[in-house]
């Protein structure tokens, strides 16, 4: 049984200007011990998806369809109290910004301890020992357990958040841009630490980031999101060499790769307005390969192999289009 199975999830925000579709028909399976990366531009719905899994959507958001199954049990149907019990015990999260995610007026050990005591009845000594053990595990001096968040550096705070996420040894860990605020060297250290811990503890991971390179390095599978939809999904190797969605190819071009002299090429245009998404393919207005059909017909997920699928009407032709997609000129052309 998959540890997490999201099926046909629709999520809407109520806004002043009407309903905004933040997620539509999102389906994603995470197997035990597997690492999956979700990539996309900001606003594509990737963070919203993680919050939906954690069950902490803002009050103006509502799940209108679909299921989020954790170890086979649908959390949406199970109700808030059952969902609360799964949080952190079953699915924990490494939050995005370590500075704001830690409560500035509470000591670090207290913040880790409350995660433990909420779910397990332990003596104070046990909790304290566990907290110190966790800090040591992520490479933070346990002697600093009684410090306040502002007394730590950015990298150290991120480690504290990881320690907190591992407090109950959850089988699934979500990570939302865990290193965006950090410099490259610290980022590397953190990911090595996460990798080592995964080897040791065997938890599954969903890594959300806008950085495709991080996913390629750290994950087994990739899901690419655009405008609230999953547009391509497959094993890292398949997507890296034979992506079948122009948006994924565009993200690739945006990477600056070591040893290559060419400039990274960005995708022109802006992500779709969630209040008024395009009628056909949501990427069509920015897509250099869009044909007339793309503007009126909504593509569905097409299986390209056993584990690789893409939401593009021209997915089958992609082998021929791919060389053109690698050329910067293709993306510079006038957009309709």
């Amino acid at each position, binding site marked *: 049984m998959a540890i997490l199975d999201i099926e046909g999830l629709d999520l809407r925000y109520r806004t002043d200007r009407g309903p905004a579709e933040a997620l539509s028909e999102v389906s994603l399976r995470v197997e035990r011990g597997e690492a999956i990366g979700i990539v996309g531009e900001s606003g594509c719905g990737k963070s919203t998806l993680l*919050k939906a899994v*954690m069950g*902490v959507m803002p*009050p103006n958001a509502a799940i209108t369809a679909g299921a989020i199954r954790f170890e086979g049990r649908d959390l949406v149907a199970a109700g808030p109290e059952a969902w*609360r*019990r*799964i*949080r*952190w*015990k079953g699915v*924990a*999260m490494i*939050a*995005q*910004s370590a500075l*704001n*995610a*830690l*409560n*500035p*007026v*509470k000591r670090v050990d207290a913040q880790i301890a*409350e*995660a433990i005591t*909420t*779910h397990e009845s332990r003596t104070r000594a046990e909790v304290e020992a566990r907290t110190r053990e966790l800090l040591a595990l992520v490479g933070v001096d346990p002697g600093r357990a009684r410090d*306040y968040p*502002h007394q730590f550096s950015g990298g150290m705070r991120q480690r504290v958040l990881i320690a*907190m996420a591992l407090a109950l040894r959850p089988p699934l860990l979500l990570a939302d841009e865990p290193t965006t605020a950090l410099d490259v060297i610290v980022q590397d250290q953190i990911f090595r630490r996460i990798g080592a811990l995964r080897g040791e503890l065997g938890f599954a991971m969903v890594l959300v980031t806008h950085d495709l390179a991080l996913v390629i390095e750290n994950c087994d599978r990739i899901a690419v999101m655009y405008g609230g939809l999953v547009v391509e999904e497959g094993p890292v190797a398949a997507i890296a060499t034979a992506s079948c969605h122009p948006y994924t190819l565009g993200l690739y071009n945006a990477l600056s790769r070591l040893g290559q002299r060419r400039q990274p090429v960005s995708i022109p245009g802006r992500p779709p307005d969630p209040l008024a998404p395009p009628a056909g393919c949501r990427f069509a207005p920015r897509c250099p390969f869009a044909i007339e059909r793309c503007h009126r017909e909504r593509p569905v997920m097409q299986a390209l192999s056993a584990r690789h699928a893409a939401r593009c009407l021209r997915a089958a032709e992609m082998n021929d289009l791919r060389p053109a997609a690698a050329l910067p000129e293709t993306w510079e052309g006038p957009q309709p």
Partner: protein
Amino acid sequence: MTAYVLRRLAYMAITLFAMITLMFFMFRLLPGDPTATVISPALDEGAREAMRRRFGLDQPLLTQYLAYLRNLTVLDFGLSFRTSAPAWEMIELRLVNTLLLILPSMIAAYAIGAFGGALIAWHRGGKAEASVVLFATAMQSAPLFWLSMLAILVFSILLGWFPTGHIVTPGRFPGPSWRMYLTADFLHHLALPFLVNTLYQLCFPLLLMRSTMLSTIGEDYVELARMKGLTERRVLYGHAMRNSLLPLATTLPMILGWAVAGSVVIETVFSWPGLGLLMIEAISGSDYPVVQGAFLLIAVLTILGTFVADLLYGLLDPRITYR
């Protein structure tokens, strides 16, 4: 920490000294010279001189100032122009009355305001929130003395539940006595001004708490607390409300000032024999030693409150460094 407290104490001393000095010169130099009102020009020259000598007004200004400072250190505000009794004796008792009315009601107002504001923000977006906000704003916008008058009109005159004023039934205690505070009669007299003042003063902390909470609820650490699976109660009290108390604490000194201002009007309406009423009475009677003493005491209370609020804030927020 010790250094911080010491520095704050030093600031407090400076502020206090400045206040005392300001007061001295204000009373001596502003157009309405006390000698003009107290020492009537109708008196003959000899009597006027005697009066001047008696109140030390014939000395040079600096000598008067030094004498004034020296007297303050032993709480000697001089003799009341009106009763010729030491001013401090009159003030002392009034201070207790004011504190008994204002302190409990401010504590109640802050506690209720903080919890109420936190709760309406937590359950935001409903009709209940909108009506509480509207009601609190209207209450806050009404003058306290007018609310007191309406309260007396409705609850004392029409319904007859409470006395219309005074601290105990007049005539029951001929002289000032501590036993007075232990009677049900006293509590009966305290009830209405206490309720009106509490209801009025809780509007500000309530509205402030609500708006702070609305910002805090959106913070990442509140979301993380919820992700950790904490119960909603623990997220509310342990994180959102705990952190929202900080801005509320910074307003304490300001509120204290309002409470004192409030005490002046509420004591007037309810004929409550406190410092505020004493000051108003003394001003109309041009009894300057008493005015000075009452005002100084009110100022000391305000400054002390500011000091306590500063320390409290330091305790609540670990990010404040005690440099």
